[in-house]
């Protein structure tokens, strides 16, 4: 008599549909890393709330979702305003009745050394990259807590983990975001997971716009790449893979963590 072989993957979720039945709200998903995450999460069954201040970008992402037979809605708001964070959460609840994944990916990147950073640059950077995420989490958490729980994913940066030159407000905001995320992980542990993705240099439309304004861009990228152990810039899809992992039940015991998406840069530095 032979007993049936045990299914050694029985404890794992369905690898093809990691987010079946779930709703993901992704800020800054009108392009770049946010869009890539929207597409891959939707491919895994999530319905996506596409938030971006760029109306055309948000619409395009929804169109791409529809082309792959996924479901999504566009919400055009500027997340640096608190009322807008409340609104995007309200829209998601009204339309889908739940939020399982809150992916705070939207950010502004402004360079400037401490002595050159104006009050306005400081305030805008802190508002968009730190306060906005507090507002979004505060708005979404009650729904996650009264529902089936949830996963919060916040985008920090290599620059929030190490010191560097010329990113005074940005680095501070991203480092603050790491601590805010860990705080949420600790406060809402039983039901909500909260983790950080810390991207390094990712080749997105925003990155390209910066390059276009830089003298000797090609040489600069070459030098940058030499310091990255994987010897290439990251792609939006590289980051989206990590976001999918954090959003899904593949990471059910991970909370308060910082996952680099940097080709090994932080380890090198």
């Amino acid at each position, binding site marked *: 008599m032979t007993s049936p072989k045990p299914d050694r993957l029985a404890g794992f979720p369905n690898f093809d549909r990691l987010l079946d039945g779930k709703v993901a709200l992704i800020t800054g998903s009108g392009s770049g890393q946010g869009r890539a995450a929207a597409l891959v999460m939707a491919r895994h069954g999530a319905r996506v709330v596409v938030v971006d201040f760029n109306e055309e970008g948000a619409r395009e992402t929804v169109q791409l979702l529809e082309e792959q037979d996924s479901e999504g809605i566009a919400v055009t708001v500027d997340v640096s305003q608190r009322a807008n964070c409340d609104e995007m959460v309200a829209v998601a609840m009204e339309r889908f009745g739940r939020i399982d994944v809150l992916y705070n990916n939207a950010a502004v990147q402004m360079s400037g050394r401490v002595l050159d950073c104006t*009050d306005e640059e400081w305030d805008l950077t802190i508002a968009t990259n730190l306060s906005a995420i507090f507002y979004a989490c505060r708005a979404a958490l009650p729904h996650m807590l009264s529902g089936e729980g949830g996963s919060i994913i916040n985008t920090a940066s290599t620059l929030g983990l190490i010191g560097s*030159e010329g990113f005074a407000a940005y680095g501070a905001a991203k480092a*603050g975001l790491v601590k*805010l995320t860990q705080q949420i992980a600790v406060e809402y542990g039983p039901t909500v997971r909260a983790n950080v993705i810390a991207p390094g240099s990712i080749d997105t439309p925003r990155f390209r716009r910066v390059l276009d304004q830089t003298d000797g861009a090609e040489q600069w990228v070459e030098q940058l790449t030499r310091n990255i152990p994987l010897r290439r810039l990251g792609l939006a899809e590289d980051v989206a893979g990590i976001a999918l992992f954090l959003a899904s039940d593949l990471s059910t015991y991970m909370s308060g963590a910082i996952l680099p998406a940097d080709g090994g840069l932080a380890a090198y530095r």
Partner: protein
Amino acid sequence: MTAQLTGRVALITGGASGLGEAIAHRFADEGATVVIGDVDAPGAQSVADAIVARGHNALAVVGDVTRTEDVESMVDAAASIGPLRALVLSAAVESFRPVVDLSDDEWQHILDVDLKGPFLAMRAGIPHLIANGGGSVIALGSTLGLIVAPGHPAYCAAKGALVNLCKQAAIEHAADNVRVNVLAPSATDTGLFMTFSAQAPDPEAVRARVAAANPMKRLGTADEVCDAAVFLASDRSTYLSGSVIALDGGMAARRM
């Protein structure tokens, strides 16, 4: 031991009370001329008076660290009385409230005092340190900027951000001989923690519990914070920059 800060001017924000007050007294003992910058006018004046009464030099400047003009006038006042060589950024506020209960105003206020305040002071003060051949910026951080405890979202975020801001400034001005470090005490017998725990129904029970959770089984003391602050301001730490001194009885080591 000879005085270690003789002939130097130090600006101490939040110097009217708590750890800032203690540091002001100690810096004066070490020969520094101290400028007490604080939003609490009578408090700042009385600290300055007490220092002067002990035969040292001190000046009170009233100002709110969240206001650019106020911070600039504090720095100008300090720079006008002698060679400004040290900035001690100790003005801070804290609250105990979880994320879902924290109001917009409270979030913003804590971020403004605990993070924007140090930024404004560095931006205004560092050029003077450079002009005087170098100097030391000592930002009062917190164990809660290194590890987290539930109920302090804004404070943790601000103090965590402060660490990175100081590292940025340290790198940007290393070649100018300006050193920037974070002094991160855990719960101390003076200042914010005492004020904060006083609001609990049984303050002594809170303090005993916090002390018991520390590897050294006690709170830190203001004297110990002053020792570290003098070290950071003095010529005993000339190669120390961009670092975080966890002055916490081993607290952060256990939790990280």
